[in-house]
């Protein structure tokens, strides 16, 4: 891998003499993430490769595709959204499949560390407002420059979640209640359709002691209601125990909304609540999907199996949203 990466890097990074410390970080069979260092006389350059190896051309139906991800990340970087710089989009001559190389951004993505470690104590109170501003930046990206992306509406999202849930053939009265509620409260097309990141939450945000450093993983980017991103980042599944701080367990909706509004964009709190309910159902259905893949797929791992047992967490969150108890 290092030899192939070294040949690739030599073609676009002037002065680079090779590649060291290539480590595979994560990913399934169809997509890989590698970390490596480009050896350079001016000092090594930390880099990340995100790629689909040859023979794994078909991305999941929801995925924007790696070339679109690279374009979005570069557009975001150019617009001042905290993002890794894209260094190179893979070409056939690289013989590395499809994908791209980006600059490695140092920082933390593990929620429990971000929420508990002293290192991030100064960043935590500022994060919700900062995330609001960053989302406004993403939603303000020039629509005419975007790559081709799926257009999504609330109605389409409800239909997709219902189809996935029904395919599990495991009755869940709480999910049925949520599906009904979502249909009855569908706010219709948004006043403005924008780029939506689609997975703006812990795990995809690199945080440093100074705050948000980079937004990652544009795989689920699409065109749709910008309030979806605000609702998703407030979903209880990303609060990691800090349930009274809706934004990622570190901040309030008011701070998130203030940061969004200060960047010149309008918040619709009812739509955000709608997408938060959708978010809980979506994560619950995704957990069910993990369970399916554990049973039927090649990844017969304990982790996947145990994620299947997390659907019930979203059921209690849905009940707290839709049928709150007093006391």
């Amino acid at each position, binding site marked *: 891998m290092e030899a192939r990466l070294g040949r690739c890097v030599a073609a676009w990074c002037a002065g680079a003499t090779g590649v060291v410390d290539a480590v595979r970080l994560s990913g399934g069979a169809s997509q890989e993430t590698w970390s490596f260092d480009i050896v350079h006389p001016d000092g090594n350059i930390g880099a990340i490769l995100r790629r689909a190896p040859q023979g794994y051309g078909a991305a999941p139906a929801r995925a924007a595709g790696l070339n679109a991800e690279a374009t979005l990340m570069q557009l975001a970087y150019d617009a001042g959204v905290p993002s890794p710089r894209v260094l190179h989009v893979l070409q056939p001559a690289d013989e590395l499949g499809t994908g791209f190389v980006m600059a490695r951004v140092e920082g933390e993505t593990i929620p429990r560390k971000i929420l508990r470690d002293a290192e991030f104590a100064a960043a935590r109170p500022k994060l919700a407002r900062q995330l609001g501003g960053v989302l406004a930046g993403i939603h303000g990206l020039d629509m005419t420059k975007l790559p081709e992306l799926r257009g999504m509406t609330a109605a389409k999202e409800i239909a997709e979640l219902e189809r996935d849930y029904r395919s599990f053939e495991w009755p869940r009265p709480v999910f049925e209640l949520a599906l009904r509620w979502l249909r009855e409260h569908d706010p219709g097309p948004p006043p403005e359709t924008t780029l939506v990141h689609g997975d703006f939450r812990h795990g995809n945000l690199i945080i440093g002691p100074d705050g948000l450093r980079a937004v990652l993983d544009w795989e689920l980017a699409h065109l749709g209601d910008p309030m979806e991103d605000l609702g998703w980042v407030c979903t209880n599944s990303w609060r990691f125990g800090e349930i009274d701080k809706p934004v990622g367990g570190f901040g309030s909706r008011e701070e998130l909304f203030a940061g969004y509004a200060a960047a010149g964009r309008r918040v619709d709190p009812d739509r955000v609540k709608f997408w938060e309910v959708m978010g809980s159902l979506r994560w619950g259905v995704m957990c069910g999907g993990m369970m399916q893949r554990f049973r039927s797929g090649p990844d017969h791992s304990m982790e996947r199996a145990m994620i299947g047992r997390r659907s*019930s967490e979203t059921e*209690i969150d849905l009940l707290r949203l839709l049928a709150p108890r007093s006391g």
Partner: protein
Amino acid sequence: MQDEPTPIELIKAVADFLRNEITPEIKGHHAFKLRVGINALDLVTRQLALQQDSDAAELARLKTLLGADGSLAELNRALAEKIAGGEADLQTPGLAEHLWQTTLAKLAVDQPNYGSYKREVGK
């Protein structure tokens, strides 16, 4: 009748061994996997201890709610269909309470440390 120790006692002994004696020996990705494995064993012990009572209570509530007889799976399917069809909703007497009790019973097994669960059992 099978002999003792019970499955709960056996699984708990294995989980405690892994937790107390193996965990300190393991580093890196395998330490993460080991933790997941121990969590799975703990979940199984909770289910073995709690499921019989919670299933019986859920079945009794479903029979009352639906005015019908059947297995837990059949009655859950019937309730799901009624909600999907709009024949039952949160105004239906007993439905919200049933969903709450059923969900709390699931969390008691799946994830008793989940923040929302800890808040709700305190009510």
